[in-house]
């Protein structure tokens, strides 16, 4: 019987022995971790200003972002980056789910910081989506714990999980994180000021989806 962790991600480079949680770095998760940390530092640069033309005249004006708005968005983006970096290296299924929920809430914070009617509408719809998809997400953790008796990814490599738990997990991640870029696009956030914070939504979504596929394969394999 082979170990799905080393099969998917290569050798385990480093291993933090913290009780049952045991974060670990393979070649794949190390790359994901480094990307998440780099993009967290990118959010500390000054946000770009949006240039809008004035119709009927040969002029344009720049739309900035207010100071209070900037601070809360930057905070949310940094928390989102930290949660992503933690989520991609963690060795505990429940920890992974918790960091996914945190990323969902911070995404909402980034989206809702701008006070446009359409933006707030999209943020509220995304919020309903997050609330509904926390049912399959936490439900999958409960069913996994009930059927296998453990939530450690290192233990789960030796157990082949059958049934609805991996499917619920995938549905939950799709609703919570996978759909985030859609709502960011729906709110036309690319055309509103404050670019580096919007990038964080996409980066976290991408990294978490890669890691989710890995964890789903670890659950069903073994």
């Amino acid at each position, binding site marked *: 019987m082979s170990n799905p962790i080393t099969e998917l991600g290569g050798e385990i480079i480093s291993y933090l022995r913290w009780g049952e949680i045991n974060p670990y770095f393979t070649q794949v998760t190390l790359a994901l971790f480094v990307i998440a940390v780099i993009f967290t530092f990118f959010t500390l640069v000054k946000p770009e200003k949006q240039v809008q033309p004035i119709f009927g005249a040969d002029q344009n004006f720049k739309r900035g972002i207010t100071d209070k708005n900037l601070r809360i968005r930057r905070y949310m983006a940094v928390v989102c980056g930290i949660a992503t970096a933690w989520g991609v290296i963690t060795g505990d299924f429940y920890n992974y789910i918790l960091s996914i929920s*945190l990323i969902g*809430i911070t995404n909402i914070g980034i989206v809702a910081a701008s006070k446009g009617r359409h933006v707030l509408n999209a943020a*509220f719809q995304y919020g309903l989506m*997050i*609330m*509904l998809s926390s*049912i399959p997400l936490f*439900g999958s953790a409960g069913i996994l714990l*009930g059927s296998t008796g453990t939530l450690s990814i290192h233990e789960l490599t030796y157990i082949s999980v059958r049934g609805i738990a991996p499917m619920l997990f995938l549905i939950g991640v799709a609703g919570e994180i996978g759909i985030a870029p859609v709502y960011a696009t729906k709110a036309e956030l690319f055309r509103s000021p404050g670019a580096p914070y919007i990038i964080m939504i996409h980066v976290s979504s991408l990294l978490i989806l890669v890691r989710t596929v890995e964890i789903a394969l670890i659950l069903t394999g073994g």
Partner: protein
Amino acid sequence: MADGTFEIIVSFSAVFGAIAIAGFLFQEEDIHKFILAQGGALTGIVILAAVGTDLAEALILPTVVVMIAETLAFSEILTEKEKLNAGITDSPKIGRRVKLNIMETSPILVSGGLVIYGALLTGFQGGAVIGAGSLYYLINKERGDVSGGLWDTIHSLAGIGLGGWLIGFAILFLFPRFWLLGLFLSSAGILIKVISHMQLLGVELKRALREKIIGEK
């Protein structure tokens, strides 16, 4: 746990979640959608609780924290959105004191029962139950403002409780022979701390209700 109980509970919560989501599909108003989504989100906690082991008990608290955080965040977004739609900057005030008969008569019985039950529980849960009872009483009965001296007294009581909790923990690790003393010190300390914080929260909540929703000074 008996065989098959977990499956039965999971199936029932799946039915409950399905009903909540089906209701969700037919709602027009945003606030109704929000409330039904909350009802559906409880199913996750039910499934976790159905596992029924120590680990499940440890997992429920973070789940509840996540749900409360989501509820607070999205209700804030909903309020902002509705304010923007109505074109106002401040929330509308009621402008008169709300008089409900149940708020006059029930507090003594309800909070008395909660206080007795919480005193039997002790520890963090007992403190939370007693605190909920006193919060209910304060919201319904308390009229005037709390003086600075009383506020400070309650605050220092919380500090003494925290000190007792820490000393109890130290006794458990340093002198394991006196484990019963350490247990009682820490459970009584956390009880006092949680109760006093919940009482301060009740006073503050009452003031916020009077000023921001009813519009009194």
